[in-house]
């Protein structure tokens, strides 16, 4: 997946003069995950900028650049260091268009690797997408495969409004899927149905998508339960129609995400299902999520992350509910 990110960035740098990349260690070093490897060499130091160490600055610069016609794609080295950007994102990036009644806009992308499971140090395993999903005027996009990383990142960079683009680092090097650099963007604001099924709808995004798919396989094989699997992909704005349509057919739903449960994006999905789909639900909507505690250091982190077993068991319970 990391190659797909690199390819998409290279494509847009080549296609659009107004695209510039900025962040810490993204130049000569090519980013700590190598997302930008080779890009400074290829496009120059004025296109791929190593910044001083200051995230508030990275976000603030991006807002200023975007308001004057550039398309900055900023990298925050890890989501654990994205919090200093919150003020600029919620107070300015997401409001500049509205504040100026459309006169100045903010076509910027804030990229950040997120999620746990790579035995990284403290603050390197955050998944707090819900904070951004609550901010009006923003888009929050999370790919879960190389193809979607490529297509959605192209779309994010071309989008006329600010996008927070979160990359599940746990799967950066998982699939070595070859992606064709055809410059074709995928649509934002829609969910992707990865697998059709009749008995239950599984909704997830990011790295958890993979445990969800594994659980779906296992459920099919071991229990003959046919799961429809949906990758939300664009967390905000949230395409509920796809999810509602599916749950109307299956009558059952389990939501899976790595973030802490309370006030996670899963809550919004479950709430809307209860609001708009109550009558079609055969069973309560369950959430399989990270716990409401601090993501532990590496010795215990695997216990924090939603596992295939947990998903499997929760789906079985939901199917058995009556």
């Amino acid at each position, binding site marked *: 997946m990391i190659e797909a990110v690199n390819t998409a960035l290279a494509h847009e740098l080549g296609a659009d003069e107004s695209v510039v990349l900025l962040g810490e260690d993204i130049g000569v070093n090519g980013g700590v995950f190598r997302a930008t490897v080779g890009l400074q060499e290829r496009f120059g130091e004025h296109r791929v900028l190593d910044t001083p160490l*200051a995230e508030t600055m990275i976000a603030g*610069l991006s807002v200023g650049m975007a308001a004057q016609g550039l398309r900055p794609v900023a990298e925050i080295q890890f989501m654990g260091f994205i919090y200093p950007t919150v003020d600029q994102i919620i107070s300015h990036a997401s409001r500049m268009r509205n504040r100026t009644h459309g006169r100045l806009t903010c076509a910027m992308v804030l990229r950040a690797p997120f999620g746990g499971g790579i035995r990284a140090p403290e603050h390197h395993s955050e998944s707090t997408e819900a904070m951004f999903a609550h901010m009006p005027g923003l888009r929050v996009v999370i790919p879960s495969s190389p193809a979607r990383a490529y297509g959605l990142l192209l779309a994010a960079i071309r989008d006329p409004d600010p996008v927070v683009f979160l990359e599940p680092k746990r799967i950066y090097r998982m699939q070595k899927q070859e992606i064709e650099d055809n410059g074709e963007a995928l649509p934002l604001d829609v969910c992707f149905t990865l697998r059709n099924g009749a008995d239950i709808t599984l909704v997830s995004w990011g790295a958890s998508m993979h445990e969800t798919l594994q659980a779906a396989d296992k459920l099919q094989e071991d229990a003959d339960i046919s799961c429809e699997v949906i990758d939300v992909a664009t967390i905000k*704005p949230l395409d509920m129609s796809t999810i509602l349509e599916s749950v109307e057919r299956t009558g059952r739903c389990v939501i899976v995400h790595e973030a802490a449960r309370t006030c996670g994006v899963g809550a919004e999905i479950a709430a809307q299902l209860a609001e708009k789909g109550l009558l079609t639900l055969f069973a309560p909507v369950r959430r399989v999520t990270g716990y409401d505690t601090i993501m532990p250091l590496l010795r215990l982190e695997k216990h924090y992350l939603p596992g295939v077993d947990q998903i499997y068991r929760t789906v079985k319970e939901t199917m058995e509910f009556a």
Partner: protein
Amino acid sequence: MTSETETVASFDIHYRQYLGPGGEAAGGLPDFAGDHDVLRGLYRSMVLTRTFDKRAIALQRTGQLGTYASSLGQEATYAGIGHAMLPEDILVPSYREHGTCFIRGVPMSDILLYWGGDERGMAFEEAPHDFPVSVPIATHVLHAAGAAYALQYRGEPRAVAAVSGDGSTSKGDFYEALNVAGVWNLPCVFVVVNNQWAISVPRSKQSRAGTLAQKAIAAGIDGEQVDGNDVIVVKDRMEAALKKAREGGGPTVIEALTYRWHDHTTADDATRYRSAEELEAEQKKDPVERLRRYLTAAGGWDDEREQELAQRCKAEVDAEVDRYLNTEARAPETMFDHLYETLPSIYGDQREELKAKGKRDE
């Protein structure tokens, strides 16, 4: 100190002033000061701003405007900045710079609309690249650095002027902006309008730094102080800094020493925290009177001109206030119209609900 000690860096901070409090020339004046039309232009801007501020406060007091932050006493700083900038330069203001905005071409009615609670007030086309009011302190200073990078990137000989207050210099955003402007050599001038107060917090409680200009030293860039009540020195130094920026000479910090005459905003009561004596003493440095005295002594101004200007300013402000007061409020559902370039369909319901709500409320 023992012999192994070595001095590795030395710095000086300079202060400049051309006109003393009484309007007397403190030294050789810059060339533009020889042209009375230029000085009269500066004077008109200051008088117009003062007229506008007084009216805006009156509007707020009578419930016709929201909370308002006046620039009374700081007219020279804002006029000097505005008259030093070229149209293609970019202004990045906080919330007290309307005096500069007017010179940039922004209609007074737009400023009133914004403080009157209507987003259309920041849609002005007269200064299309200028940034809107920015309320969160110092956050906009980073936008200035980003905008300056855009100019540098495109190789345009333009400069950015960021304006913020003494209080803003305590915030990390301000420092981070100076630091990156320095290391990237950005075409940006950072004007610190030191009006001695951040609401109730005096300058002395913001920082132990003896000057705010020396904040520039931390970023390795030039910093200087000017008398912010002397419009001639503000324009002169600002022009020099902008020229330097446009020519690739990099950023500058200019600390303008002035004083906030009025309450912080109409929601504030300055008598709670500062003395009448202090205010009185500061008002003796009146920037408007200062230039008038100089210009009069130099034979470039007289009572007739003064009266004519007062009337014209009043008439202009009257007309703009009427335009503001006669601007109908937007329909409620329009609060969704500039959220995104194209409103995602899922928000359509909420927009419709607002529309219905608006109808019912009529």
